């Protein structure tokens, strides 16, 4: 069947985000595997904090708030960059 074109969202940390409804997360020792049933991409989430952050995005008014609430200050830039990559691969999307 035709594969959906990847939904690429430009990442704005001030906007509200959520895990894409067509993405499943499988827990692994290093974090999780994310599989997008729409664009068939397999993505590695390489820390448990990132997995928790991604799973909780929908509970916050913005990605920035989620980062402040869930990630140590020294780790926030790296996690924000990781969220931007996940937005580019369609794993998370603006809501």
């Amino acid at each position, binding site marked *: *069947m035709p*594969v959906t074109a990847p939904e690429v969202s430009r990442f704005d940390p001030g906007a509200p985000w959520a895990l894409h409804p067509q993405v499943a997360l*499988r827990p692994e020792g290093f974090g999780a595997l994310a599989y997008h*049933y729409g664009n*068939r991409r397999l993505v590695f989430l390489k820390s448990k904090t990132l997995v928790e952050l991604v799973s909780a995005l929908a509970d916050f008014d913005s990605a920035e708030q989620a980062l402040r609430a869930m990630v140590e200050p020294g*780790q926030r830039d790296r996690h924000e960059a990781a969220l931007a*990559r996940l937005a580019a691969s369609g794993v998370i999307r603006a809501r």
Partner: protein
Amino acid sequence: MPGSGASALRDDLERGLAAPICLTWELTYACNLACRHCLSSSGRRDPDELTPAEARGVVDELAAMQVFYVNVGGGEPMLRPDFFDLLAYAVGHGVGVKFSTNGSRLTAARAAQLAAMDYVDVQVSIDGADAAVNDAVRGPGSFAAATAAMGHLADAGFGRFKVSVAMTRHNVAQLDALLDLADRYGAQLRLTRLRPSGRGADTWDDLHPTAEQQRDLYHWLLERPDVLTGDSFFHLSALGEPLEGLNLCGAGRVVCLIDPVGDVYACPFVIHRDFLAGNVRAAGGFASVWRESSLFAGLREPQSAGACASCGAYDACRGGCMAAKFFTGLPLAGPDPECVFGHGEAALAAAGPVAIPRPGADHSKPARGASPVRLSPPNRRPVHA
């Protein structure tokens, strides 16, 4: 991603995952073709193949383990009478299916049916850009059948299906023509490495690309990252810049094979008792084979580099393909027979004639002219190693 680079991820993957990410499931040993390099020595159906109910049970397990998709093959999977039922059952349970076919049963009506399904990918296998090169390996009429199927998929609006090619000495010169052929049908080209597995053990010397052809292939692939390779050619990454993919042997770590009778092997290229981890029919099913098999536990331990330890490229190629070494009689700790620096060829020459392991599970049809009567069951457990 936070905290880790590509090599840290590779270390994680080498220690194994909670479930495979690249699981091949061969549904039947039956095949209407008799390709000279068939890695599963397919031809005749095995009377002990999983029943439709058992196959659905495997899907249930894969769904519970969050195996997101399976690579289905055979034999020719479309020859299984319950093929479309099983396909619908799998995608209905969140297990996507990417299946390989020779195209001979892929009619216009079947193509339309497939185009209407979610989470199904199709790979049509050819081994040359024209009938002469292709049919020399896959048999008379096989190129016409495959291209007819490709036409049906394109006409049905299936979208980007795959055209899958095992690289041989005779088709490396056709790389551009193969890409053009796939493009004409709106398909994506996928190249895989020929292995000396199954009937490929007997045709390896005639078919495997030369050292010069492998270098050509490497450079051609580097320039075309859109061409898929299924991580097949990581032994070539020793030439410099790594190719797209994880660049590691995933056998028993992120990869495994379920064969038509439910036997679980470390990878699709090692159908041999030395790499048999268990059977999905045993208590605990596939999940316990994946999690508890001592064979897989061993493969998830750090592997010895052997004779490759002093080579500066070891970190790039990791010694190459376990199956290619095993079925050419080379030690598993040491160079791949197609090592880009020629260390594999040197090792083969130094070893002289050695006993080469014979593939297990030979379901080849009897040679033409031989007696069709066969009194003993297929030789699934060869007595010689």
